[in-house]
């Protein structure tokens, strides 16, 4: 039972283009939505995160757009670079405490030069 649905599974973008990864959730009790970035052979690392009372958060070339009514959020990578090639996971934190996260299935991004 996947409570956070992520799409697409894989994405190819040209250098300088915009990468967009989408996630949807059902549980309205989720209260925190992070994105993690994972390079091959490494553990995931926090990239950017948002709370449901904010519609957008931007950090450099990375932006999260959050639509509370639609229960959807997305990651936008502007001016994508080959160094952005990685797997991206969206996640959501449940109301049960202890910072437990439910992860999406992941998106493998390849940015071609």
């Amino acid at each position, binding site marked *: 039972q*996947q409570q*956070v649905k*992520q799409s697409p*599974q894989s994405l190819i973008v040209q250098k300088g283009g915009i990468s967009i990864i989408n996630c949807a959730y059902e549980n309205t009790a989720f209260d*925190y939505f*992070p994105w*993690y970035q994972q390079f091959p*052979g*490494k*553990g*995931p*690392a*926090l990239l950017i*995160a948002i709370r449901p009372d904010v519609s957008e958060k931007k950090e450099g070339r990375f932006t999260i757009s959050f639509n509370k009514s639609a229960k959807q959020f997305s990651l936008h990578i502007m001016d994508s670079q080959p160094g952005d090639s990685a797997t991206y*996971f969206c996640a959501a*934190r449940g109301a049960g405490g*202890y*910072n*437990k*996260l*439910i*992860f*999406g*299935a*992941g998106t493998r991004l390849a940015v071609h030069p």
Partner: protein
Amino acid sequence: NAGVTQTPKFRVLKTGQSMTLLCAQDMNHEYMYWYRQDPGMGLRLIHYSVGEGTTAKGEVPDGYNVSRLKKQNFLLGLESAAPSQTSVYFCASTPSRGGAQETQYFGPGTRLLVL
């Protein structure tokens, strides 16, 4: 600071064998987690711990046991390995309070192959 470290990096087991994966963190974090990562499945929580001497089940706990005898260490045990447990295992930790309390810090992973 080494952050979160995992031992071993890679292991091959035969069906029915047992092993223990070790996770260590030097950040004095209260919360620790074990995940497994499988293609197309994302990261799924196996067990977690909110403090020394406490553990709890996550989403996929069957076939695994854990212990947290010391605050800095979180052990994941497989008593009788099965091919379905072939996966990459990640440990993570989080402080219970403070500015970084919502960030999970991950280790580099342990790749396990069960034949």
